[in-house]
C-alpha cells in the first residue's frame, strides 16, 4: 500500500517538475528573437508600415523584420510556396479579393478575430471596432485605400479645372493624354459613370452584356489618348513630367507626391473606387506571427500609420485619432478616402463581381487593347 502511495507521489512530483521545466523552456523559446518575413507592397506604403509598426515592434520584441515587396503577385507566390511544400512567408499584405481565393484554397489560416486582435481602447471588441463587413474569414484589414483619377493643375486654365469623372472622358473641354491602369478594373466602372450610370448601379449594369459593351464604347472615345500603366509609381511620374494631364492612381501616392514633393496634383474624388487592404497569415504560420499581428493591428498603430500615408484606418477607434502628416501641419482627415465630401459618390469595389468576371473581362480588355 505504502509503496503505491510513494509511487504516486514520485509520479506527481516528476510530472510537476517536468511541466515546470517544459514551461520554462517554452518561455525561453517565445522570448527568443525571431526573423519575420513580411510581404507587402513596397514604396510609400511599406514605408508607412515600417514607421508605424515595424520599427516599434522590432524595438519592443527584438524580432528582425524582413520586408519583401511581393504583394503585387502575392497569390501566385503563396500558391507556388504551398505547392513546393516550403512556405517562407510569415505574413502577407493582400487585397481582400485575393484573400477570398487564397482562403478557399486553404493557403491561409482562418482567423478568430476577437481572440487574436486587440480590443479598442474603450473595450469594444474587434468585430465591432473594424468597419462593418471588412473582416473576412481569413483576412484582417488595416487600411481603406482608393483608386482615383488625379490631374496636374498646371495643365488646365485656372477657371477651367476638371472636377468630375466625366471630365476625364471629355477630350474636347479637357484635352491632353491620360494614363490609366492596364486592367479592366476601375476603368469599366468609371466609363459607365462618365456615361451617365449612377455609381450605385455600376455593377448591375456591368453584369449585362450591353453594359460591358457600353463601357468599352465609352473607353473607345479616349483610347488613342491613353498611356497604359502597370506599376503604381508610373502615374505620379507621368503627371509630374506633364506627359499626361490625367492619371488614375492610388490616392496615397498622389497625396505623397503633392504633400512631400510639392507637385501640383489634385484628386478628383468623384466616383472613387475604394477597397480594403490588409493581412493574411499563410497556413501554419499563425503561432509565429500572432504577437506581431496583435500589435500591428491595434488602434494606436493603425492611427499612427495614417501619419505617413493618406489611407484611412480600418478601425473606427483609430479614425478618431488621425492627426497630421508626420513632420508637417497638414491635416490628414480631408485627404482620406472616407472623408465626407470625398465619399459622396464613392463606389465600393465589388470583389465578388470581379472574382467572377475578371478572367473574362481581362481577356476582352486585352483583345480590345490589341485592336
Amino acid at each position, binding site marked *: 500500500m505504502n509503496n503505491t502511495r510513494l509511487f504516486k507521489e514520485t509520479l506527481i512530483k516528476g510530472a510537476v517538475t517536468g511541466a515546470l521545466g517544459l514551461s520554462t523552456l517554452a518561455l525561453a523559446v517565445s522570448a527568443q528573437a525571431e526573423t519575420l518575413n513580411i510581404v507587402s507592397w513596397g514604396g510609400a506604403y511599406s514605408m508607412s508600415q515600417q514607421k508605424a509598426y515595424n520599427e516599434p515592434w522590432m524595438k519592443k520584441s527584438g524580432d528582425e523584420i524582413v520586408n519583401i515587396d511581393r504583394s503585387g503577385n502575392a497569390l*501566385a507566390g503563396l500558391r507556388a510556396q504551398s505547392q513546393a511544400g516550403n512556405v517562407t512567408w510569415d505574413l502577407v499584405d493582400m487585397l481582400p479579393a485575393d484573400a477570398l481565393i487564397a482562403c*478557399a484554397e486553404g493557403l491561409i489560416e482562418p482567423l478568430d478575430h476577437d481572440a487574436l486582435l486587440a480590443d479598442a481602447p474603450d473595450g469594444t471588441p474587434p468585430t465591432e471596432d473594424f468597419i462593418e463587413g471588412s473582416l473576412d474569414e481569413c483576412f484582417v484589414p488595416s487600411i481603406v485605400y482608393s483608386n482615383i483619377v488625379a490631374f496636374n493643375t498646371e495643365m488646365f486654365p485656372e477657371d477651367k479645372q476638371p472636377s468630375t469623372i466625366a471630365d476625364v472622358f471629355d477630350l474636347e473641354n479637357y484635352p491632353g493624354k491620360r494614363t490609366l491602369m492596364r486592367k479592366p478594373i476601375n476603368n469599366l466602372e468609371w466609363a459607365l459613370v462618365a456615361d451617365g450610370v449612377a455609381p450605385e448601379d455600376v455593377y448591375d449594369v456591368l453584369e449585362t452584356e450591353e453594359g460591358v459593351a457600353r463601357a468599352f464604347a465609352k473607353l473607345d472615345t479616349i483610347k488613342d489618348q491613353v498611356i497604359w500603366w502597370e506599376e503604381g509609381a508610373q502615374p505620379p511620374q507621368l503627371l509630374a513630367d506633364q506627359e499626361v494631364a490625367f492619371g488614375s492612381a492610388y490616392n496615397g501616392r498622389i497625396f505623397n507626391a503633392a504633400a512631400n514633393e510639392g507637385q501640383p496634383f489634385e484628386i478628383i474624388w468623384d466616383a472613387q473606387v475604394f477597397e480594403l487592404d490588409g493581412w493574411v497569415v499563410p497556413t501554419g504560420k499563425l503561432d509565429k506571427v500572432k504577437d506581431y499581428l496583435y500589435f500591428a493591428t491595434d488602434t494606436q498603430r493603425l492611427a499612427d500609420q495614417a501619419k505617413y500615408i493618406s489611407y484611412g484606418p480600418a478601425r473606427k477607434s483609430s479614425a478618431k485619432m488621425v492627426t497630421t502628416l508626420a513632420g508637417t501641419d497638414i491635416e490628414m482627415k480631408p485627404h482620406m478616402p472616407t472623408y465626407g465630401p470625398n465619399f459622396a459618390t464613392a463606389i465600393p469595389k465589388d470583389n465578388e463581381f470581379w*472574382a*467572377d468576371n475578371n*478572367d473574362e473581362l481581362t481577356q*476582352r480588355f486585352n483583345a480590345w487593347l490589341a485592336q
Partner: protein
Amino acid sequence: MSESPTAPLKTADGVPLKTSLRRAVRRSKLKALLLVSPLLAFLIIAFVMPLFDMLWRSVDNPEVSTALPRTSQALADWDGESLPDEPVFAALAADLEAGAKARSLGLVASRLNYEKSGMRSALMGSARRVAKLEAPYKAALIDINDDWGELATWRVIKRESSPYTLSYYLAAVDRQYSPDGEIVAVPDYMQVYVTLFWRTFWMSGVIMLMTLVLGYPVAFLLANLPLRHSNLLMILVLLPFWTSLLVRTTTWIAILQSQGVLNDMMVALGIIADEARWQMIHNKMGTIIAMTHILLPFMILPLYSVMKTIPPSYMHAARSLGGKPFLCFRRVYFPLTIPGIAAGGILVFILSIGYYITPALVGGQSGRFITNYIAYHMQTSLNWGLAAAIASILLFVVVVCYLVFNRLIGVDKVKLG
C-alpha cells in the same frame, strides 16, 4: 602453328582478349558517365522534369473530379438534354458541404470560372450556405444561384469532369467549346492569342533578317581582316554580348523615346519639328530595333565560324577564271556560307520567339509577344494550365524548326566561334 586458328586470343594472365577489352571499355564508359553525371542530373532536374511537368499541366484537369467526386459520378450517365434530376443536385450539395469543410473548393471554383464566368461565386456562395439546406436540393440550390438552373452550367461540369482536357489548348488558339460541345471560335472581341502568335513569328522573322543583313558584312570582315584588326572588331562584337540584357534594353529606351537622344538630335538639327517627334519605342519598331541589337552576336558568331573555314584561294580562283566580283560572291562565296546563315538564323529565330523581357519593356502595346502572356498567366491570372498550353505550342514550333534545320543543314554546323 600448332594451335588451331579458332582458339580465342588471350592476354598474358589468361583472360580472353575480347573479355578484357570489353572490361576496359566498360570501365572507361563508366568513368565518362561519372564525369558527366553532375551535368546530367542538373539537366534532368532543371530542364527535363520541368518540361514534362509543363506539358503535363497543359492537359491535366484534376480539379472537378477530385473536388466534386460525387457530382461528376452522378453526371456520368446524364444525357445533357435537360436539367439533371434531384440525385445530381443532392450529390452536388454533399460535395459542396464536404469541400467547404476541407477548404478544397478554391481550385475547382477557379477552374470552372475559366470555362464560364460566374461559376466561382455560384460554387463559393452555395458552399457557404449548403450546410443549412434541406432536400429537395434542386429547388434549394437554384434558389441560391440561378446558374444551377442553366443547362450550360451542368454541361461544363460534366465536360470538365474528365481527368484530361483540351480546353487550355483551345483557349490558347482563341477557340472554345460551344454549349453544345462543339469547338467554335471565341467572339471577335475576345480574340487575343492567335494574333499574338502570328505577330511573334513574323516579327521574329524580321529580326532574323535584320541581324543577317547587319551581321553578314561584320562576320565577313572578322574572317578576312588581318588578325590585329579582326581582334579589335571581335571585342566590339563581344562587349555588348557580355553586357547585361537589361542595360542594353534600357539604353534603347533612353535613345529612342520621344524625349530621347535621337529625337533631341533630330529636332536640334532641324530635321523634324519639336511637335512631330517620332514614336520609335513602345511599339513594334522599338521591339525590332532593340532585339536586333541584342541578338546580333548570335548571328555574327556562327557566320564567322563558317567564313573562317572558307579558303581565300576559292575566290582568287573564281576571279582568275574571269568572274566579276559580284558573280564570284554569288556563285562561290555565298553558297559556302549558307550553313552559317542557317545556323545563325535558327539561333536568332528560336531565341527571339522566346524573348519576353525586351518586348515587355520596349514593345508597348503593339510590340508585345505571346511570351508576355505566358508570364501574365503564370504570375497574375494564375491560369497555369493556359500558360503551359501556350508554352507547349511555342515549344512545338521550336522543335519543328529544329527538325527542319537538322534535316536541311545538320545541327553539327552550329558553332559559336
